[in-house]
């Protein structure tokens, strides 16, 4: 205790850490009616941390070589002490992160928290979501299983539908005419170095935006009134609000515990939920497995492409949908955030969710 105080005094006299901590913890006030959806950011940070930790542990034993990758993953699962636990936590965690990212984005959309002045917060969050999917896509290839090989073969092949530069894109993504050692090399580099660096930068920027602009008030209750956004920079203060620490961090912590409980439950009792049988066989370029489906979060895209008569049209429609979501704060400029006062948006919101779920189920059973 004495040592801790000594260290704090030492740091405080040089960096003024107590002032920083007070400003960002006990003195940082949140809206009194802040709800449970606001904990998703902290939960996601905890999950990202776990992914980095398990990823680093996997890196110790994984060999990014087409001849050795599958064997090394098999060894991790069977020979390395607790290797199975580390890998399953990594695999199940990646899927849970996508679920949590979707919930985080849906809650932000529902409460209109993406609106001015939080356009950059939304945009950086949206890119983080896409990076999350890119992590999954690149991580999929690394075990060099049948699923890895064929999913990547067809996924990269689809880039050929892009006019003019399609063929170049396919070769660029694969590092050659077909999926092979160069593809594994570049996906591995992206997964363990390129994407994490970009990801950390974006998460930092996202958190900076959240803190700099201030937490948005939930648009519920009698006291809430939409405010005309200020023309110059304005930090959203919440006088008389709830201290971030310990009052809200303890709520964050409880949600982290519950999500970790779900993660551990799936890891120990149903890890196969996120590992199709073809992921358990080594890659064989001469045998195409039947009935392969993409992972659940790509099923909507898979089914959309089946609906459209041409690959290009399918890709364009998905690009348009994703592009629309990215620039939504720049299109939806009304200051109104209360769902009850935004019937058109809420209707489209619900239809969008139904479309996503419907296409995914359709894709799964088609």
């Amino acid at each position, binding site marked *: 205790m004495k040592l801790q105080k000594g260290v704090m005094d030492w740091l405080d006299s040089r960096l003024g850490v107590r002032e920083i901590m007070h400003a960002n913890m006990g003195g940082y006030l949140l809206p*009194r009616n802040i709800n449970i959806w606001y904990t998703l950011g902290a939960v996601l940070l905890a999950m990202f941390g776990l992914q980095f930790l398990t990823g680093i542990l996997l890196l110790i034993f994984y060999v990014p070589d087409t001849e050795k990758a599958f064997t090394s993953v*098999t060894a991790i*699962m*069977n020979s390395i002490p607790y290797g*199975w636990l580390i*890998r*399953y936590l990594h695999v199940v965690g990646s899927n849970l992160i996508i679920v949590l990212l979707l919930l985080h984005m849906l809650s932000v959309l529902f409460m209109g928290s993406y609106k001015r002045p939080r356009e950059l917060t939304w945009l950086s969050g*949206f*890119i983080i979501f*896409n*990076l999350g*999917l*890119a992590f999954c*896509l690149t991580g999929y290839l690394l075990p060099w299983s049948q699923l890895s090989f064929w*999913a990547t073969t*067809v*996924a990269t*092949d*689809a*880039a050929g539908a*892009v006019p003019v530069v399609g063929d170049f894109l396919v070769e660029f993504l694969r590092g050659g005419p077909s999926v092979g050692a160069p593809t594994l090399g570049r996906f591995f580099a992206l997964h363990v170095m390129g994407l994490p660096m970009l990801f950390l930068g974006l998460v930092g920027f996202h958190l900076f935006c959240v803190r700099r602009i201030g937490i948005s008030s939930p648009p519920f209750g009698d006291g809430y009134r939409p405010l005309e956004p200020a023309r110059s920079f304005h930090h959203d203060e919440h006088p008389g609000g709830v201290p971030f620490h310990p*009052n809200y961090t*303890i*709520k964050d912590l*409880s*949600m982290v*515990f*519950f999500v970790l*409980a779900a993660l*551990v*439950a799936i*890891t*120990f*009792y149903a890890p196969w939920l996120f590992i199709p049988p073809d992921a*358990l066989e080594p890659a064989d370029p*001469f*045998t*195409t*497995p*039947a009935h*392969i*489906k*993409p*992972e659940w979060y*790509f099923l*909507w*895209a*898979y*089914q*959309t*492409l*089946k609906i459209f008569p041409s690959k290009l049209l*399918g*890709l364009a429609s*998905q*690009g348009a949908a*994703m*592009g629309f979501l*990215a620039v939504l704060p720049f299109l939806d400029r009304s200051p109104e955030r209360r769902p009850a006062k935004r019937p058109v948006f809420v209707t489209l919101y619900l239809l969008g969710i139904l479309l996503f779920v419907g296409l995914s189920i359709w*894709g799964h059973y088609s």
Partner: protein
Amino acid sequence: MKQSFLGISIMLLGLFVCFSSGAAFAAEDTVCIQCHSGQEGRLAEPVELWRTSIHAANGISCNDCHGGDPTDFAMAMSPERGFIGAPSYTEVPDFCGRCHVGVKEDYLASAHGKALDAGGAQCVICHGNHAVKAASIDLINKESCSRCHDYERAARVKEEISSTETTLTKLEQAVASLHRLGIDTKRLEDSLFASRNSFRRIFHTVNMDKIKAQKAEVADKLQGTKAAIADYESILGKRKLAGGVVVLLLLLGGAIALLIRRSYHDEE
């Protein structure tokens, strides 16, 4: 720019199934399949039958049995390229025995094999020709056996080997379940495969003493596999127990944190 690139990347993965359905086993790509599929009647029939067979499921194509060149339309059925066409009735055991060497040996030593020249049943009588059925105890049944002789003795043979068949099937399912959980089951699969092959050799004999001796031998081999599976299942059980404890602790931690939060809420 980054956004659109990632967007495209996401969508790309969805495409793979569209095309995977178009891709097929190499066995489907032969000129034999291409030509016979386009014909009618008895010339097209083998292709459809073959597609339902254990051979098709394992990538064994026309040329693997009938020879010839599966890549050249003009020379596909040329004897110069090894085409041997369809065997006569008595040639069938030799025809199939080129691959199924041990089975052929057992068959020829059996009552069926000894009666071959007198019209005794050969391979395709029980297993079918193009729609080749996997070797299974189900092939011994009243409907099939009664086509040629009384079913009584066949029924006794079937009864004698049924328990081993059931054990083998259960062990195979247990190994498949372990494999599904990411456990390296290659050693167990190889061991079961060898036991299954030894066991199948019993199917072609009707000598009850020989059947009993071979059955005991197979049962002995299966003991080791059973023990290994039990070890894995015990480890998995312990893992689940540990996982359950961790889940409970995490839920407890979450509940305590919520209670603490409530105490702050009262102060607020």
